[in-house]
């Protein structure tokens, strides 16, 4: 059995700079979503239903 404490300990031990990883990821995702949206029909709607029922 374990607790959430182990997760935190393992990450610290791994020495990964998660802030740098997440910042890079944020930039990459933003850029790639822009690339993806550039390939679809510019008139594509949001696609989320706002059903009033």
């Amino acid at each position: 059995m374990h607790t959430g404490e182990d997760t935190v300990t393992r990450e610290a031990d791994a020495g990964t700079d998660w802030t740098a990883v997440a910042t890079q990821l944020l930039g990459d995702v933003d850029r790639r979503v822009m690339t993806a949206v550039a390939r679809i029909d510019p008139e594509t709607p949001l696609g989320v239903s706002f059903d009033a029922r």
Partner: protein
Amino acid sequence: MDGIPDLWKCDIAAVGQQLADKSLSPVELTDVMLARIAALDPAVQAFVTVLDESARRRAAAAEREIAAGRYRGPLHGIPIAIKDIYDTKDVKTTCCSRVRQDHVPTQDATVVRRLEDAGAVVLGKVSTHEFAFGFDSTPTRNPWNTEHIPSGSSGGSGAAIAAGLCFAATGSDTGGSIRAPAAANGIAGIKPTYGRVSKYGVAALSWSLDHAGPMARSAKDLAILLSVMAGHDPLDPDTKDVAVQNYAAALTGEIRDVRIGVPSNYFNDDVTPAVAEAFDTAVTHLASMGAQVMAVDVGDLDGALDCMLAIAMAEAAVYHQDSLSGTPDLYGAETRALLEAGALMSASTYLNAQRVRSVVKVSFQRALSGVDVLLTPTQPRTAMKVGETVSRIGPREESVFEVSARFCAPFNLSGLPAASVPCGRCQDDLPIGLQIIGKPFDEAMVLRVADAFQITTDHHRRYPALAG
């Protein structure tokens, strides 16, 4: 454990029959599984909380009911585990995070209630990547090789089933978190259609991408579990009032009239040779059973993974905004960084990701218009080593998150039902998964194909050496 050493290898259908005809006692069965947890879980670390007292109490109640002729059905007396993001009344639900290390819900998640009403015996809570936001599920280990991760985020569920510590478990899937650990641990799992299974009482990662579903050893068992878990829930506005199919009746073993589409793009990219070979062999096998196999175009999916990430990161940041601002130090470093990055996601990126998602959805509707199911590998590779942060397949370098979600995330965006069943292994004996995708609310067809594959192959009848 000594008297019935191989009981844990059985699937629910087989064990349930013994419980129903009273040749096996639910108390005896529960004791076997609790003894296995005590003996094996120190190496696997799948369980966060073991509920030995309440499990024995529920098993004794099941025994009395069955003896009195009040058999509830195929889950009556079956020991299962619950992913630790599902609320369990009076039992800690930590999401494997210090943020909720003392959180004790006052009621059960709808799915937990339904499973217990069907007579299932909850052995305990199993681990998840913190708040289900990742794929390594540390510190849980893969029973096939404890130097490898069990994948995630439902890694505790996958590892516990593979090690024979329970017969089934609940999972949740936002970008592959049921299917990836199913593949990594050599078991079966299904992410049902969005809206098929209630998420009430399940901690959210991303409201519009989250799916709750079952994990077990076989498609037959998934059918039994899903029959109980599925259905409209007035407490969950995302569930749809669509009739629940008779999943067990759909498992005919016959697929001669089934049309199978194999995507001609995206899902062939950058997979390991072992995965490619196992997938091709599985497709050939299904064709030899009489299924019509044809290539299909699934459209442009190059941005799918990033759109899933944009949506998940932004929605997760909103779900966590109060506790992230109040107690940021209680989050693990990885989760905190992802949530803080999500809070910085621009509205235009989030909305554009939703627009691309609507195109992806239409592309899959077209791809499925001429076939009954699609087949893909579940994962491009087998489970990564503990501590490994970069996956390399040929020239492609990816994070654990990217390689784990690449083939699964498109079906979180589309909301289509998708299952994974084992279809082979790589040279170092780690399992490989076959992903089967169906039309909306047609889980019966997905399970029919999965079951037909399993009753003519033995990949799901292999067990890790650790399990004994």
